[in-house]
């Protein structure tokens, strides 16, 4: 507690003290007199129902029925008893006298009674008026899942979960209802058991440099996940809710006997795709063609038929000397390539990894204590040598009921994970290099141009990727503890005060080390040992402290249901960074820590932000038919300009349960019909902590060899800087047919994001290229459809759930007077554009239209530079007779039009089978990896994409008409060569399980299940220039102002086959 107090020092240290004093003084009030009620709970057929929860409404006081369905509970006269059991309809009965109260529970044929978690509370699903998607984590422990975000793939309409990396343990990217922000991130706010976690956006490379909110959170501990999609549901979270809010609820103990569960699985992890690259013979074929062409072009009298010796003589080289631009390796033509090795680098670096998981949990509840305790160990080897992820996590959720008025509890979850990744994904990293590596080598894989071996002179100068994987270190250790202490006090029957104090602390260290033996050239390794060795060590500590206090009032008066919430919150994030790196190599070999470095650069820095909030909500329903809800939040953040630190975030929504109207009440067909309407405003505050200020930074100089410290403004101040605002209108319809055998939800939304936190280009005369200001707007419109059907009931059960979403995204305006912003590119001319009227980050390149023929040239076709016959033919978009950057046009957009997921579940006797199919259509990917592996004029040494096989070779042998000749010197321009459809369909998961319960019944084991899962085994995509159409790993824009994470060497999705066991004791 002392730490917590210290943390909140700036804000309300006194307040906290007061709070606790008042809280515990309240606790001393006494309960009213009570009576004992007993009875039996039975089902429709009159059979006794054990383990039914019997709870006094508005308290946590609860018991459960015994094996004979009997219960006994002490309750006040007038109290409401709530009888609850799994899929049965919950019944509420008032206590009128002491003694017997028998109850019959009916199996639910409606989902209306389900309770969903909403911001700062729960609500009956039937009363929900906002757009909320629910993911029940019931079967989560039956899938080999190491992250919570992984579980959400393909599950909910409007919630797009992208697996952007194949590195084990790495965060996924989640977007709710499209992308509305250009530079402030599009990731939702995560709220774990009421604790709003610090939001973080991926950096330009698509990585979370200071952690993702879901890191280290054990999916096996999750009870349910709710996604608040529209502003009316999310607006209670104000300035952080514009990208949606994901509410995660962890498991609680259930009344009844303590339950002990043990879950384990083990299996294999492999690549799900191999990229089609040229093989050794094809590489030689291309190299020979190119070298001969270069030779012929290099001077008169030079012909392709001249031998290596003749060329050496012409070039005047000494014996044994080569000019690899003009001379072939004679061994290429010899049998077995004269002893050269043919290497498939992909096969060398990929492997079959082993994954295993163990989870032990215990839970239970008594009248006074409710607990859930778990421990988990996961070890997952990656599909690439040298990559793995290990995590240890524990959780204790304990809730204590001190008396009828006071309840308090602690949730604590310490976790520790270790990730090993020697740097596989991304530009010029190991995977990219392995793909580009020449397949013909003098040495064997693992020894190419490393240690004492020199480079094969026709090969790229890259060092052996396999040796890099096995000899370098890239280790990240993350120790994260999430803790919540809360107390709840019932002031009156209907009025409850709740306070929570939350702390999320992450200590992360990362270490890297690359020895000189696997870098540089042999000469460098020999002449300057250790100099090429590099190493670094970095750490950060990230702390989020949240104190929230709410008062809630719930009252039912006849047909009127009223619920009122008022609250206040203090939220602060503090980040402390340390980075150390070796300068100029290491002085000592064999030591991987920086004490061996020849010199060290070090740095630390800190940043902090504070968010202060007040919020309130009123929910009213009449007869459960007419529903109204309104909320408002006022947020103040230190991140914004002094003129605009506070903002209001209102929302209002209404619902009409048509099915409850008299005209539908008795309908046999329609069991549920609800219309929802909502409007709300929320914000996005995801910018740097001091984005509104004119900060000074170090801009040093030197005089006479001595550093001269300099300070200069490093960005334009903007005292008006404020949140991004997002206004969402949502119309929804929920429908249930035939006793809810078919349920469906339909939503239409229109979300306008305005005042975007945009790095608006400004004249360079201000000293800066851009200024962070609130400018521009983006509209996302879409429809969402969710359908759930019970196709077959009885012995053989078949259920289907389907979700389908469509989103269209459009830039409505940019800065005043501007109609487009070209996104800078680190590689050649810009290829992405923000243009008013078009989707965000539209792909803007020159269109390729076949191959130039002599006829084209005779007809004065537009050319790019010195193009000749056999080079690609580009579209002269602006018709000025030449091909250049002005001929770019919009040819695609990154976001898909449609995303979908379908889960089919079959049950027969003890067997169950579920299949999840997921996919998307309508988007495009502009692949810089494809460009790196298949560019015009690509040199001899690099290996190239398989499509070069069918290249243009001569007018009479034009190949497939897609790829021009191997030897071209006109250069390159961003064109549709590297534009791929991002459509894919994938069988994400097939699980076949068998309930062993029947076989082992009566023993100590209460239940057991064995299952087999295949993840990512089948699928199809059109991405020939890379492995994963959703991959992002490299900052393509090279600009923080317009982050554009794209694929420059991302791993394929892991394909795994798992055998698992679940036991319940």
């Amino acid at each position, binding site marked *: 507690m002392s730490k917590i107090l210290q943390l909140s020092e700036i804000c309300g240290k006194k307040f906290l003290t007061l709070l606790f004093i008042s809280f515990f003084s309240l606790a001393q009030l006494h309960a009213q007199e009570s009576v004992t009620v007993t009875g039996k709970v039975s089902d429709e057929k009159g059979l006794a129902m054990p383990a039914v929860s019997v709870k006094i409404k508005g308290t946590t006081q609860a018991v459960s029925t015994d094996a004979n369905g009997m219960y006994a509970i002490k309750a006040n006269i007038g109290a409401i008893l709530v009888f609850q059991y799994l899929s049965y309809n919950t019944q509420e009965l008032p206590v009128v006298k002491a003694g017997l109260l028998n109850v019959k529970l009916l199996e639910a044929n409606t989902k209306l009674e389900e309770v969903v978690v909403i911001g700062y509370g729960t609500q009956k699903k039937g009363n929900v008026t906002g757009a909320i998607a629910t993911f029940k984590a019931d079967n989560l422990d039956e899938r080999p899942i190491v992250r919570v975000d992984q579980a959400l793939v393909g599950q909910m309409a409007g919630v797009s979960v992208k697996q952007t990396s194949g590195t084990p343990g790495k965060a996924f990217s989640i977007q709710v209802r499209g992308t509305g922000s250009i530079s402030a991130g599009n990731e939702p706010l995560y709220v774990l058991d009421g604790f709003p976690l610090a939001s973080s956006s991926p950096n330009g490379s698509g990585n979370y440099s200071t952690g993702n909110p879901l890191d280290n959170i054990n999916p096996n501990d999750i009870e349910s996940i709710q996604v608040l999609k529209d502003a009316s549901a999310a607006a209670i979270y104000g300035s952080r809710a514009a990208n949606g809010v994901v509410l995660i609820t962890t498991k609680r103990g259930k009344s009844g006997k303590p339950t002990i569960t043990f879950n384990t699985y083990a299996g294999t992890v492999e690549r799900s795709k191999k990229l089609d690259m040229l093989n050794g013979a094809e590489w030689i074929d291309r190299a020979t063609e190119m070298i001969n062409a270069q030779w012929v072009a290099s001077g008169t009298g030079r012909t392709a038929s001249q031998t290596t010796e003749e060329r050496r003589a012409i070039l005047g080289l000494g014996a044994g000397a*080569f000019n690899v631009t003009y001379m072939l390796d004679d061994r290429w033509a010899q049998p077995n390539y004269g002893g050269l090795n043919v290497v498939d680098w992909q096969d060398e670096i990929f492997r079959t990894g082993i994954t295993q998981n163990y989870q032990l949990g215990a839970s239970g509840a008594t009248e006074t204590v409710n607990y859930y305790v778990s421990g988990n160990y996961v070890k997952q080897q990656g599909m690439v040598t040298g990559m793995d992820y290990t995590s240890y996590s524990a959780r204790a959720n304990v809730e204590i009921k001190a008396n009828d008025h006071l309840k308090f509890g602690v949730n604590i979850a310490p976790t520790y994970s270790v990730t090993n990744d020697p740097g596989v994904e991304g530009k010029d990293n190991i995977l990219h290099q392995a793909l580009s590596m020449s397949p013909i080598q003098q040495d064997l894989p693992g020894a190419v141009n490393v240690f004492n071996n020199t480079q094969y002179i026709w090969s790229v100068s890259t060092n052996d990727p396999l040796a890099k994987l096995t000899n370098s270190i890239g280790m990240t250790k993350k120790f994260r503890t999430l803790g919540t202490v809360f107390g709840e006090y019932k002031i009156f029957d209907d009025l409850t005060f709740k306070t929570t104090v939350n702390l999320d602390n992450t200590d992360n260290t990362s270490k890297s080390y690359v020895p000189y033996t696997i870098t540089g050239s042999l000469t460098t390794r020999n002449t300057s040992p250790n*100099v090429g060795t590099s190493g670094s060590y970095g750490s950060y500590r990230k702390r989020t402290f949240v104190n929230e206090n709410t008062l809630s009032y719930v009252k039912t008066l006849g047909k009127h249901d009223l619920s009122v919430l008022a609250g206040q919150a203090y939220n602060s994030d503090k980040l402390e960074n340390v980075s150390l790196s070796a300068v100029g190599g290491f002085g000592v070999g064999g030591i991987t820590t920086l004490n061996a470095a020849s010199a060290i650069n070090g740095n630390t820095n800190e940043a902090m932000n504070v968010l202060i909030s007040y919020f309130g909500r009123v929910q009213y329903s009449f007869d459960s038919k007419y529903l109204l809800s309104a909320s408002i939040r006022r947020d103040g953040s230190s991140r914004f300009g002094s003129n605009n630190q506070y903002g209001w975030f209102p929302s209002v929504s209404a619902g009409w349960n048509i099915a409850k109207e008299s005209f539908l009440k008795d309908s046999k067909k329609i069991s549920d019909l609800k219309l929802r309407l909502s409007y709300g405003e929320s914000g996005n505050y995801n910018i740097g902590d001091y984005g509104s200020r004119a900060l000074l930074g170090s801009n040093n100089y030197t005089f006479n060899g001595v550093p001269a410290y300099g300070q200069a403004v490093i960005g334009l101040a903007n005292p008006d800087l404020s949140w991004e605002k997002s206004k969402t209108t949502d119309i929804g319809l929920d429908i249930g047919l035939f006793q809810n055998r078919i349920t469906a939800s339909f939503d239409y939304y229109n979300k306008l994001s305005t005042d975007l936190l945009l790095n608006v280009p400004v004249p360079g005369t201000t000293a800066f290229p851009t200024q962070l200001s609130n400018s521009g707007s983006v509209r996302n419109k879409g429809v969402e459809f969710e359908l759930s059907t019970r196709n077959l009931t009885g012995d053989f059960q078949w259920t289907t759930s389907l979700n389908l979403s469509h989103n269209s995204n459009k830039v409505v305006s940019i800065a005043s007077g501007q109609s487009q912003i070209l996104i800078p590119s680190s590689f050649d001319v810009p290829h992405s554009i923000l243009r008013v009227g078009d989707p965000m980050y539209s792909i803007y390149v020159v269109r390729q239209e076949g191959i130039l023929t002599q006829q084209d040239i005779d007809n004065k076709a537009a050319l790019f530079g010195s193009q000749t016959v056999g080079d690609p033919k580009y579209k002269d978009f602006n018709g000025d007779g030449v091909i250049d950057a002005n001929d770019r046009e919009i040819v695609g957009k990154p976001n898909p039009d449609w995303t979908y997921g379908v889960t089919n579940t079959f049950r027969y006797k003890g067997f169950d089978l579920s299949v999840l199919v997921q996919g998307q259509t309508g988007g495009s990917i502009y692949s810089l990896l494809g460009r790196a592996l298949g560019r015009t004029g690509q040199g001899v040494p690099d290996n190239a994409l398989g499509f070069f096989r069918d290249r243009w070779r001569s007018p009479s042998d034009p190949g497939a008409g897609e790829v021009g000749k191997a030897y071209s010197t006109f250069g390159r321009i961003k064109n549709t060569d590297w534009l791929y459809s991002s459509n894919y369909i994938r069988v994400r998961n097939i699980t076949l399980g068998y309930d062993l319960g029947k076989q082992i019944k009566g023993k100590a084991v209460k239940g057991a299940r064995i299952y087999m899962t295949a993840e990512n085994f089948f699928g199809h995509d059109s991405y020939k220039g890379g492995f994963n159409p959703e991959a992002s790993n490299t900052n393509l824009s090279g600009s923080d102002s317009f982050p554009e994470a794209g694929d420059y060497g991302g791993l394929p999705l892991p394909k795994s086959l798992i055998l698992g066991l679940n036991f319940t004791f």
Partner: protein
Amino acid sequence: MKKTLYTLLVAGTVLIISCKKSLEQQPISNNTIDTYFTAPNDFLQGMNAVYNDLRTYPDRLLNLSETRSDNLYAVSEGGVRDWEGINSFFKTIASNPYVEEGWSKNYNGIARANTMLEQLVKNGAVIPDATLRTRYEAEAKFLRAFYYFDLVRLYGEVPLIDHTVLADEALNISRSPVADIYKLIISDLQFASENLPIPSAYAVGDKGRASKFAAKSLLGLVYMTRSGPDYGIKGPGLGLNEWALAATQLTDVINSGSYTFATNTGTATTAYSNIFALTNENNREVVFNVEYATGSNPQVGATYPWLLVPDGYFQSLGKPNQGGLEIRPVSTNLLNSYEANDIRKPFSIQAGYAIPRGVTETRSFFKKYVDPTQVPASRTDWAINFIVMRYTDVLLLKAECVLHGAPGSTATDVDAVVNNVRIRAGLAGGKTGITLPQLMEERRKEFAAEGTRWHDLVRSGLVTTVMPAWIAADDVRKQIQPFNNNYIIYPVPQSQLDVKIGLYSQNAGY
């Protein structure tokens, strides 16, 4: 119960009050402009930051002057390097990173100088020493003029910004006539030359700061540049006849006694190379230089030394790649222009290299600033200073003025200087009747790889004849587009045109 509610109410009030304050978070790891410039040292650091923008100037000269000229045949095999199009006169270089950098970096320096000048007015009183205050003003004005002169030479007309501007204002400032920019440059340099100390008046630790004679030398060059032909473009040349004005400034420098023309002593032939020696920095040849040092954190070292050096050369020495990437070969024309025994040739130019895998590079490249024994731990941290203006340059510029009719004697001001330069280079002296083309030819060899060539061609009017002739002779790969006068200046960077359509017009020919 009432009591409790009151408690809560009070607690809430305390919270609201105390939290208001907590929204006022001061950045922990940075200063802000609101709290800076309140102590003498703040002004020193503000001044140093204006110098900081000089650090990329040498790279810019090599990329945009040396590479544009007939000194290099920098067309690359694959056609993808950033320097592609600079040397080969592509029309579409408005987005070229070098072209972009020239604009943004110079305006960054100008803004810092403006900040400094404004803060001196606002808070300058905190500096107790009035002389120091004036020196800061003069240094800031010198650097502002320096950055504007670079802008004018690169782009011609540019926006005139003489105070700090925010985006709203900047969006309404269009390009000013070159003459207006020169007005500011000249007045700034006049103030600087009147108020800056002479070099010897600076403390040792201030070596490298702008001096009176740096200002006069630059002012001389400015007058000369204005006197160059205007080519019918809105470029740096105005066709004014200010050779005499220039000569006056340069003569002041020559007569100051602050500088010495380095000569060989005895049989040694090291005087030329010694000017550029790391152990001989800030020698008596140096009028103004950009200073670098290695091993600091943050780095204050240089990248320009390897800019024109292919990575393969460092590999052949067993050193890590530095970042020069592919070779930018020295043009055949320049190679052949050296007389036998010219010691400047082997010092400035490396004739190929062999990396030990049987592959040989036979083309030559500039390696003037690369001392293989001084490869730093980090490739971006070379120690060697870059001499922007050296005494030899001042002498030769004065000679140029005389050839253009400024007062002076052809024999002593031209022939003697050129002969001294030749003798130091290991060549025969005794030349008489030096003509302007001969003088420029001598400059080409003397200042090879120093980034002056393009500006020299433009100022002297030779560019229209030399470049087409050179292209015809040296462009064996037929990659260079025909030269025209519009290419004397660069296009306005595309990013600047895109900010607000119509604010700036593009230069003719692009």
